[in-house]
C-alpha cells in the first residue's frame, strides 16, 4: 500500500540510487526500503531505466577525427577569406575617405571665399544689409533690429 511516507520517499529514490543524498536522508530512505516492498520495486525500476540509458552509449563512427579536422580546416580557410575581404573593404573605405578629404580640402576654400558660391544664408543677409543700410558688416547676422530700422528711416528724413 502506498502511504504518504512512500510518496515522499519515492521522490528521493533516484538521488538515493545515485548516491546524491546526504547521510541522514540516505539512512532514512534505506530504513523505509527495508520495510516497504512497493518502494523497493520502484527503486528496482528506476535502476533498470538508468542501466538501459547507460547501455545506449554508442561508439564513435570510423573517420570521426579526420572529418572533424577537415571541417576545422575549411572553417579556418573561410575565416581567412572573410578577414581578407574585411581588410580589403577597410582599405577601400580609407581610400574613399582620403579622396573625399582631398576633394573637400581643394574646393572648400573656394566655396567659403567666393561670395557668389558662399553659403546662401550669409549672402542673403549681406545682400539685405547692403540694400537697407549700405553695408554688409552689421554685427547682428539675424538682420536689422527695429531700432536700427527706425534710425535708418530717421536718417533718410
Amino acid at each position, binding site marked *: 500500500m502506498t502511504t504518504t511516507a512512500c510518496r515522499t520517499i519515492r521522490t528521493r529514490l533516484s538521488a538515493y540510487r545515485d548516491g546524491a543524498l546526504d547521510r541522514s536522508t540516505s539512512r532514512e530512505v534505506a530504513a523505509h526500503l527495508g520495510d516497504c516492498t512497493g518502494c523497493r520495486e520502484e527503486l528496482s*525500476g528506476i535502476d*533498470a*531505466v538508468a542501466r538501459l540509458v547507460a*547501455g*545506449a552509449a554508442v561508439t564513435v*563512427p*570510423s573517420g*570521426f577525427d579526420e572529418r572533424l579536422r577537415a571541417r576545422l580546416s575549411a572553417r579556418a580557410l573561410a575565416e581567412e577569406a572573410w578577414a581578407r575581404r574585411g581588410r580589403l573593404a577597410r582599405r577601400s573605405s580609407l581610400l574613399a575617405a582620403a579622396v573625399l578629404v582631398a576633394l573637400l580640402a581643394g574646393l572648400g576654400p573656394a566655396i567659403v571665399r567666393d561670395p557668389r558660391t558662399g553659403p546662401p544664408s550669409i549672402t542673403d543677409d549681406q545682400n539685405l544689409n547692403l540694400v537697407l543700410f549700405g553695408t554688409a558688416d552689421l554685427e547682428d547676422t539675424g538682420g536689422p533690429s527695429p531700432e536700427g530700422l527706425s534710425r535708418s528711416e530717421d536718417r533718410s528724413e
Partner: protein
Amino acid sequence: MERDLADTKAVAVTSCGPAETLRDADDVRVWIETFLAGGTAAEDAFSRIVRTYRDRVVSVVTAMLGDPDPAEDVAQEVFLKVHANLSQFRFESRFDTWLHRIATRTAVDHTRRFWSRRRVALEGIPESQREALLSGIAGSQGRGAQMADPERRMLEAKRARMVRGALREVPAPFRAAVVLKDLTDLSYEEIGRALGCPLGTVESRIHRGRAILRRKLERMLRS
C-alpha cells in the same frame, strides 16, 4: 530495416584510432594551455582533447537526439564550438562540465530545428524477443543473458534504438539531466553547473525524467 542496420553498425564499428586516456585531471589543463599558446603543438593538443572526450560527446548527443544519423554531425559541431571558444574557458569549473553544457545545448538547438516525431515502436520485432529487449525494466535479466554473442549484440542494438526513441519523447530538460547522469556519470552538482540549474532542480529532473522514460518504455512494450 535500414534503421536496424544503421543502429547495428553504429554500435559495432570500432572506434577511429585509440581514445586518449586521461591520466590526470591536470592533463586537460596542459592541453588547453598548449592549444591557447598556439604554434605547431596547438592542433595536436586539441586532437588529444577530442580523442579523450569524443566517445562521451557522441553518446550524449546521440541520446539527446534519439537518432544516431545526425549525431556525428552535431558532435562535430560541439567540437567546432569548443575550438572557437576555448579561450573563454576560465578553469572555474571542470572542463567536462563546460563541454557537456555545450553538447547538451547544441543537441537541444538541433532538436528544436529538426524535431521529428517519428515514433519508434517495436514493429518488426518478434514477440519472443520483446521480453528480452526490455528485460531490464522489470528488474530481471530475462533471456538476453543466455543468448549467443551475435544474437545478443543485435538485441543490444535494438534495445539501444528503442531507448533512444523513448528518450526522444522525454521533454528536453528532463532528457538532458537523465542523459548526463546515466551516460557521463557527472555528479548532481556538475550536472547543475552544466545545465545552469540548482541542485534540487537537478534531482527532480532526473527523477521525473526516469519516471517518464519508464512509462514510455512500458507503453512500447505493451503496444
